[in-house]
């Protein structure tokens, strides 16, 4: 009998999850390890998914680009990893949603709280930039910057905002005294 009850709860959860996805226009959701293979597979999936919608090549490229950079961010920077020694393959959550006017790509991953001030400053600087200042910032960064041990160039956020011309939406949710959950949404306009 205990098993039957458990099944009922699971089935409710599935329907609840489905309804929430639909209400939020989520067409794709994933939680788990973000390896290089997963990044590639999801990006090609999104590419073919968008192709069905008959979107322009430039929109397709932008969604593909934002996906790759977002997924690689989780892989490299998530504070949660199965293999602690892996420089990439962090754990996180990933959503893609579509409405009449836009695609949104949302990622979530845990980070150490001591990273927040730095990350906030970076995101605020990028969000307050305009086309010209972001171009300048990108050039400065690519010239001065060195690749991190994780192989990141520190250009991902700037590049997303430059390509989408939309501000990043983000928040930090409390997990415990040491960790927060970092949620980030990028928006790609379908009408541009």
């Amino acid at each position, binding site marked *: 009998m205990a098993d039957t009850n458990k099944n009922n709860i699971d089935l409710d959860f599935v329907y609840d999850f489905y309804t929430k996805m639909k209400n939020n226009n989520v067409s794709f959701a994933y939680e788990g390890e973000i390896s*290089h293979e997963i*990044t*590639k597979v999801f990006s*090609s999936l999104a590419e073919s998914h968008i192709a069905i919608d008959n979107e*322009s*090549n*430039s929109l397709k*490229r*932008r969604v*593909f*680009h934002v996906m*790759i*950079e977002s997924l*690689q961010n989780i892989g490299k920077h998530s504070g949660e990893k199965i293999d602690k020694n892996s420089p*990439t393959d962090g754990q996180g959550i990933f959503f893609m949603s579509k409405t009449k006017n836009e695609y949104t790509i949302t990622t979530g991953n845990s980070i150490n709280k001591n990273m927040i001030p730095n990350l906030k400053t970076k995101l605020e600087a990028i969000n307050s930039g305009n086309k010209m200042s972001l*171009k300048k910032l*990108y*050039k400065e960064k*690519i*010239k001065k*910057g060195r*690749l991190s041990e994780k*192989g*990141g*160039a520190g*250009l*991902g956020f700037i*590049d997303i905002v430059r*390509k989408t011309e939309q501000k990043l939406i983000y928040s930090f949710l409390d997990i415990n005294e040491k960790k927060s959950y970092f949620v980030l949404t990028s928006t790609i306009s379908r009408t541009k």
Partner: protein
Amino acid sequence: MQVIRIEGTDDTPQVILDANPNNPIMEISGRSLPEDVVSFYEPILEWLEEYSESPLEKTILNIKLEYFNTASSKLLLDILLKLEDMADDGKDVLVRWHFPDDDEDMEEAGEEYEDIVEVPFEQVSYTID
């Protein structure tokens, strides 16, 4: 000089570096989002380093990428900086930056590299399909 010939995959570009004076080819094309960008581009940078010691009369690098991630963009700059060193030494160097005619972002990326490095650039548009 040794010839580098790397087949392209869905995440790494095709690379041909052949300094044969009768038919030199230097080309990077396709997609670039390698799992480990540094180790992918290392042999290419080493090849260029060796080549720059006694380059051909004219060096033309063709870059025809359809996609590259930000980590690759940093390594592409390192490649272009090697060419800049050669140009600074008075060598005849040219970068041909190929972009699909409907890809403004790729066109702009080429213009930005042209702004950053002191190497002659030629923008070449092409049509897909």
